């Protein structure tokens, strides 16, 4: 086995290990706690109840019924927010661990071509795919690009496994599971997730609350996680050739 392919396999292995480590940390700090289990069960129960109510509601439904539904939505939103807050702990722990790990791996694989790309990436991606590599052959792949791709796929899949199916990635109350990956999400991403979920529940968004929903959502930690995870690498700049 050549050195390059060995590096490729090693990076995939590192990605799998870090994904499992992230899930492990989250399980220890979040999933096994009574508070999380209780909140999750509550949110599932409430969302099913709300969905059933919305399916039976008619155009001519009384104002009282609509107000009741709005109150239930508010309650559900608050529980979702509490659930996200519970996951914050694991976010910080994971961010901290991975910053350290990324720094270490980056120095190990610095300047090494770890794979050959079967395509030439777009120019704005070349900064990542050809980071710190010598020469002008843009099919050379750097550690960080392959690591990001592996993390995007493997960590998402491991989250889907651990949260009982891909719905763990889909619902806004487990949006932070997706945030643990390197899929860049922001408040907009969380907002769109909530909007999509509410649309799915066929709930018309109250006009005056359209933007308020984002204010009540906890700030996405994805941005800070990505920054902390990649900052040692991204801030380094590309290597200059002679």
């Amino acid at each position, binding site marked *: 086995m050549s050195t390059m392919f060995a590096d*490729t396999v090693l990076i995939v292995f590192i990605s799998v290990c870090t994904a499992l480590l992230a899930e492990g940390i989250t399980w220890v700090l979040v999933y096994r706690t009574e508070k999380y289990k209780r909140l999750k069960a509550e949110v599932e129960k409430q969302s099913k109840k709300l969905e059933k109510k919305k399916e039976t509601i008619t155009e001519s439904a009384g104002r009282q019924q609509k107000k009741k539904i709005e109150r239930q939505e508010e309650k559900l939103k608050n529980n979702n927010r509490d659930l996200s807050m519970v996951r914050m702990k694991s976010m910080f722990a994971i961010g901290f661990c991975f910053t350290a790990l990324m720094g270490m791996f980056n120095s190990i694989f610095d300047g090494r071509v770890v794979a*050959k790309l079967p*395509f030439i990436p777009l120019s704005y991606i070349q900064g990542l795919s050809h980071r710190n590599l010598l020469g002008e052959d843009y099919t050379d792949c750097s550690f960080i690009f392959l690591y990001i791709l592996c993390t995007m796929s493997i960590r998402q899949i491991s989250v889907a496994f651990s949260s009982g199916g891909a719905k763990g990635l889909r619902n806004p109350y487990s949006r932070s599971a997706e945030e643990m990956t390197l899929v860049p999400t922001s408040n907009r991403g969380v907002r769109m997730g909530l909007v999509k979920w509410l649309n799915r529940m066929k709930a018309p968004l109250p006009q005056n609350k359209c933007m308020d929903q984002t204010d009540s959502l906890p700030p996405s930690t994805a941005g800070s996680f990505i920054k902390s995870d990649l900052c040692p690498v991204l801030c380094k700049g590309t290597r200059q050739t002679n």
Partner: protein
Amino acid sequence: MSGARRKEEPPLSHPQQHLVANGGGGALRGSVWGKALRSDSAWEDKDEFLDVIYWFRQIIAVILGVIWGVVPLKGFVGIAIFCLINAGVLYLYFSSFQQIDEEEYGGTWELTKEGFMTSFALFLVVWIIFYTAIHYD
């Protein structure tokens, strides 16, 4: 209308569902995949069907990544063909094979997007690994 197109399946009684969900995780998954491979199945739980779409996407990504890496198929043509096949096969699956009502799931676009980015990343990883292993080892 959409209900009339589907086969009626006897719903599990609540204790059976609970038993299967808790102690028979394997059996539950088996029944989901059984439904997924049968034409025109009934999908009471929408999340279940979306899960099936998600995992089918990942399987297609792995298969195409291996084929593209072995052939090899290079360049953006490979990426474009992957996107077409991924979207096309799943579209045929949910519209023709399962004959579901797309509106119940938020429209065709929602179903097309389901798990797409993850499958794309997985496809790239597999493609790169096989290409590197076979053509540069």
